[in-house]
């Protein structure tokens, strides 16, 4: 009944109980920001550092947006980190000076990412394999493909235009990465909240049987959701390779976990059917803020893992408590 109520709640406009949860995350986010600004007024609190944080949140934010769709639909996608590596390697291989126009590596990243997502979706929908297992398999396969494609070592020597994809700045101040993150967020948030498609994503995650009975083509929805996640991972791979000016077959390792962490911190339920897009944005920003702040304070990366992990657990704890209060 709890899941069904999530479904009906969506039809009502305006503030509902679940937004308290995102409010809690927002307060935690502001609190952490404030603490870091007090601890480091001259470095962390500088405007240029906020742009830097947005830039560092962008790739994870794009991955997290795709992940959010998958998790709301009741699934999980572990393959995105490997897709980042594969599309990074392939796109960099087609971006050597004087070989192919820039559109080739871009299209290849999009097509490869989408295709892998489509296969994930097919495994989940038509193979009836649990999403965790399908994407665990494809995560391993795609990592293998990335290493094969790169012959085990990084691909470098790319065109200036390719480098500028992620490395450039809009109006000389805003990094391109931030612009992409913004565009992806706006489009995906719109689709999720204002379209039939978005409502169906919630519906199949909330109660698959009910969704099927009410005439939603659940299998086709799953194909679409995993394809979207794959497509965004492909874009993230292209952008990461552009940002590091090389396609590295070992890059993107554990990126899927950061993406999942952003989604969870943002209050999206792992059981599917509920969650807000802005929660995910805050989650991605929070992860970037913690990493950036602790680097600036010169805290050892080993302690950073400890702090990041604790925040994830606390976020989920809030999630569970919040749910308990609702029922």
């Amino acid at each position: 009944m709890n899941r069904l109520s999530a479904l009906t709640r969506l039809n009502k406009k305006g503030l509902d109980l679940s937004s308290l949860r995102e409010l809690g995350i927002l307060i935690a986010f502001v609190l952490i920001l404030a603490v870091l600004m007090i601890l480091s007024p001259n470095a962390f609190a500088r405007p240029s550092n906020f742009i830097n944080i947005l830039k560092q949140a962008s790739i994870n934010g794009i991955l997290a947006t795709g992940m959010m769709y998958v998790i709301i639909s009741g699934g999980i996608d572990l393959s995105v980190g490997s897709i980042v590596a594969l599309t990074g390697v392939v796109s960099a291989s087609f971006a050597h000076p004087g070989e192919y126009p820039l559109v080739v590596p871009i299209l290849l990243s999009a097509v490869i990412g989408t295709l892998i997502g489509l296969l994930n979706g097919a495994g989940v929908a038509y193979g009836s394999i649990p999403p965790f297992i399908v994407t665990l398999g494809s995560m391993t396969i795609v990592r293998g493909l990335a290493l094969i494609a790169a012959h085990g070592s990084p691909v470098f020597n790319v065109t200036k235009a390719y480098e500028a994809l992620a490395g450039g700045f809009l109006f000389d101040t805003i990094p391109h990465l931030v612009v992409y993150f913004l565009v992806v967020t706006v489009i995906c948030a719109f689709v999720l909240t204002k379209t039939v498609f978005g409502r169906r994503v919630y519906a199949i995650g909330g109660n698959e049987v009910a969704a099927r009975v009410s005439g939603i083509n659940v299998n086709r929805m799953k194909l679409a959701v995993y394809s979207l996640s794959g497509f965004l991972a492909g874009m993230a791979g292209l952008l990461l390779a552009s940002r590091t000016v090389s396609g590295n077959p070992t890059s993107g390792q554990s990126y899927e976990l950061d993406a999942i962490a952003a989604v969870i911190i943002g209050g999206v339920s792992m059981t599917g059917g509920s969650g807000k897009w802005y929660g995910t944005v805050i989650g991605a920003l929070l992860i970037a803020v913690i990493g950036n702040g602790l680097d600036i304070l010169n805290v050892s990366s080993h302690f950073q893992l400890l702090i990041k992990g604790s925040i994830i657990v606390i976020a989920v704890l809030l999630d569970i408590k919040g749910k308990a209060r609702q029922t």
Partner: protein
Amino acid sequence: MKKDRVFALVMAIVLIAAVLMAGCSPQPAASPEPKPAKYGLFMSHMTNAFTIELSDAVKAKAAELGVALTVYDGGNDAAKQLGQVETAINEGISAIIIEPVSVDGIIPAIEQAKKANIPVVTVNQNISKPELVTSFVGVSHVEGGSLEMTTAMEALGGKGNIAILDGPMGSDAQIGRDEGYSQVMAKYPDAKVVFQQTANWKTDEALKLVENWLQTGTEINAIVAENDGMALGALKAVEDAKLLDKIKIYGLDATPDALAAVKDGRLAATVSQSTTEQGTKAMEAAYKIVNGEKVDAQIMVGHTLITSANVDQFIK
């Protein structure tokens, strides 16, 4: 349920195609003579330019000597590598060439090899009980780190602020290079380390880390990285901040992309640890031992400093 079957069929076809493709790639030819010598190369992993160059050198030397060589990829997993060595011992391997994942974790397998009278040659990274090993072929990481830091210090005139990018904490190379750095820094009291953090050999981690360091406004005069992958990440961050005229960047490994950056004058220097020579000498040593010749317990290969002055000799 028909869709289930179609999906299973598609997966089966993909699998068969993959196996066929793998089967068509060249395999080491088995020699027809009875009980031919079989060599095994156990790599810690096969996922960066360094390990690929090293294993390629061993393979090339084995081909030149006309001996059978099997390459095992330890996947950076100490337990996996242990199992690979144990299996190879049971299959009656003639000699083991190993780049260990863990300096301690591999000891049980090496002891087993010793009991079975199978010679062991460690390459690039030694193990914590070197007396078990017939021969070690490699470099002194202390020397490599020392050469890199000395170059940086001389360029800065012995004073300034240094930021250090470490490899994964606890690896043989990280410990050695850090010691080399410290030895040099001790000679220059006017220079100080303002940041030191691990980026786990990774370009993207180093990029993020250096971006954040630059945000602190702390003056940095040089960034010294324990490998080229991290140096290139630092380079990108410094270039984005338009500070390349103020911050010199140093790497180590002489990977092709780092050499290109040295040639363009963007990377101040890199240090070659003569990777190909290490691989060639390791295979050579194993071959000699199997054929009853004596080899030195330690075969050391030197480091070479690469700057814009001599980079052209190293670009292939």
